[in-house]
């Protein structure tokens, strides 16, 4: 018996990435010349693509008004199909499971969009490799893991050591600058109004904090720092203009068959058998990038050869 038919595990949600952007060097921790930056009260920029965050991390790094906009960082499983049809048994087991991108790309403490300002990828063409690619899906019942190597003949090789980028070209995304799917995902279709609203909100917050300062409420140094941080956010949005707005409709679509280890613990709960010997196809996209909040949308499917019964 062969495993021709696929169990499709669909996931989606907001991610957060505290990324430095060209023309800042990729390892810039605060952000100066790029359009992204870490505010002084926040953690340094670390490039890491985070599909899940803790409340403590959110308290330090998820900027206002993200929560008021309904942005909750978390990429989760939304549905499961088998051979193109809803598979209720699988959905019952996997729906709500959390999707993680794991591993690290030293010196960065997690997976990143690797480009190094047009060296190993291209910032100009949005040719970013997600490096490393170690996809994990977990809940209390199951644990799924799929790993892809940049260079399967030398899995430990770093991207900057690979002399021929054709080796990992299969990991580059297709780039859609005006994606309908990205706009629909976050329900924003007027990019200019979106950032006009943001500037209005930030300006209002500055006025509120200045009132608190004048009335002697709160720690003056902390209030001053927050006011200046909000001014920096407005400065960046106005300074970069279109570089902010057009990224709201960006979509980077990835698709490849994973060439590394694959595992599926708890497969017996799905009512069938999973094939871990043949490469699993994975497709996903990142987009709807808000360079002020440092958030975006991720959506994708991990396809697992599956034999029910």
């Amino acid at each position, binding site marked *: 018996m062969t495993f021709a038919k696929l169990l499709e595990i669909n996931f989606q949600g907001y991610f957060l990435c505290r990324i430095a952007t*060209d*023309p*800042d*060097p*990729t*390892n810039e*921790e*605060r*952000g*100066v*010349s790029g359009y992204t*930056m870490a*505010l*002084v*009260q926040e953690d340094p920029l670390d490039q890491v693509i985070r599909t899940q965050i803790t409340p403590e991390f959110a308290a330090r790094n998820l900027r206002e008004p993200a929560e008021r906009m309904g942005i909750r960082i978390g990429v989760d499983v939304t549905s499961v199909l088998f051979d193109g049809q809803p598979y209720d048994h699988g959905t019952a087991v996997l729906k709500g499971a959390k999707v993680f991108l794991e591993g690290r790309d030293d*010196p960065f403490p997690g997976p990143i969009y690797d*480009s*190094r*300002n*047009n*060296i*190993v*990828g*291209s*910032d*100009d*063409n949005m*040719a970013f490799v997600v490096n490393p690619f170690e996809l994990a899906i977990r809940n209390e019942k199951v644990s799924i893991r799929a790993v892809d190597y940049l260079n399967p003949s030398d899995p430990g090789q*770093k*991207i*900057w*050591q690979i*002399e*021929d*980028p*054709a080796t990992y*070209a299969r990991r*580059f995304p*297709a*780039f859609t600058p005006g994606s309908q799917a990205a706009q629909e995902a976050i329900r924003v279709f007027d990019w200019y109004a979106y950032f006009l609203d943001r500037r209005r909100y930030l300006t209002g917050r500055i006025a509120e904090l200045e009132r608190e300062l004048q009335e002697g409420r709160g720690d003056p*140094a*902390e209030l*001053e*720092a927050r*006011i*200046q*941080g909000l*001014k*920096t956010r407005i*400065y*960046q949005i106005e*300074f970069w203009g279109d570089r902010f707005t057009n990224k709201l409709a960006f979509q980077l679509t990835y698709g490849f068959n994973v060439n590394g280890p694959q595992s599926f613990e708890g497969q017996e709960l799905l009512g069938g058998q999973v094939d871990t010997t043949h490469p699993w196809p994975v497709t996903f996209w990142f987009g709807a990038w808000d360079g002020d909040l440092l958030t975006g949308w991720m959506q994708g499917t991990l396809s697992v050869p599956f034999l029910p019964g």
Partner: protein
Amino acid sequence: MENTTREIRGPIKTKPQLIAHLQEAAEIEQQLMVQYLYAAFSMKKRPDERCNAAQFEAVRRWGSTLLMVARQEMEHLALVNGLLSAIGAEPYFARENIPLQSPYYLGARLGAERGQSEEVQPCDIPFVFERFNLATIGRFVCAESPGYDTLVKSGDPIPTWCFSAPGQPCPGSAANDRGQSLKQARTHLTGELLEAPLHPGSIQELYDNIQTAFDELPDLFTGNPSRQVFVPVEYQINIFPIVDLASATTAISLIVEEGEGIDAPPGYQSHFRRFFDVRDEYEAMLARDPSFDPSLPLLLNPSGEEITNPFARRTFDLFNYSYATLLFVLSGLYRYYVPQSSQSYPFFSSALQETAFGPAMTMLLRPIAEVLAHTQSGDGEHTTGPNYHLSPEDEALLLDPDRLDNIDFFLDRFTHIISELGALSAADLAANARSEDDVPFLKRQLAFVHESATAMSNNMRRIYQIGQLPQFVVT
């Protein structure tokens, strides 16, 4: 801002004279750029006891502005080289070393020679490497300022520190305070062009002369149009092909509009206006907190002799070697540029182009400069910064770009850079860092730039062999 001081002096009558003027412009654009970069790289990267969290946010914004203006000076340098290429001249990336005094920024003396010593005179603006402080940003405002009459007519704020008036002398510069007598900059102008006095304190007239020459001289566009380097519009820089009078005029207009705001729409954020606003905000913050210091204690006009810490000296020399390498890459690119669609093996032009801009500027030079800024110079007080020094041998090569035709020359230079970065990464960083807190930064920075330089060198060789790498192919 409307131009009200378009006095044309020393009209350009021949093509060689036009080339000499463009070389003057190229040299000044690069000299301004490296001064702005020096100040930008001196700015603090985290709050400290003399720069609190709120102040640091302003420092970050000022750094962003400085680096943007420096990028646009690079753009101006590239456009001037496009103008040179358009008229069949060689690229010009040579430059006289700083510190020096440019004749274009000798305000009072030349103003007096010109018989204009009435009430208000522009001040001398020395070209020096100085960390970011109030005098430095004030000097940058003056360097980008339109003439006094233009300012008055436009209603823009007048930077009073850029002009002397009865009872109001020019402010001293740090270089002058130290008693340095600045070398007078060389000029490419010869013969009758030298007899007409230069308008002080304005690059505007230099470009006006160049524009008039393009308008009036016949048969100028003898360059190969396919040799025009093109960089897509991004990061506030626009490098486009210059092939005829219309595109030459666009380039010249862009340069003076971005710099001084000449003929720009109302409210336009020229370099002058941006620097003015930074200085304004800085001055107000200093008034509230006189102890505020936004920058690291970099040496004034650093030289190799002053840097007694061997690690700092080796890093300093590596920076200059890397900077000269970048200029060689740019010269080779402009000399041998071929559009990608017209290339076949060997892909020399593509190999240089994919190295020159983002990679070398942001992932090699800036990180090394930032390492210098956090490294003890050896005098117990200062850190250091790059002085962008070009040796006589470097300059001889830049003035003869025909010799920059061999990929091995560039790869050999990268081999040396990678070797030096490897050695610096292995050094005792704790003994050389400005403070213990800077050690992790230095360690991370040197390791990362070593990796990036290795990958850049691989790319250069690989592109030379096979053409574009997959990441650079637009699908």
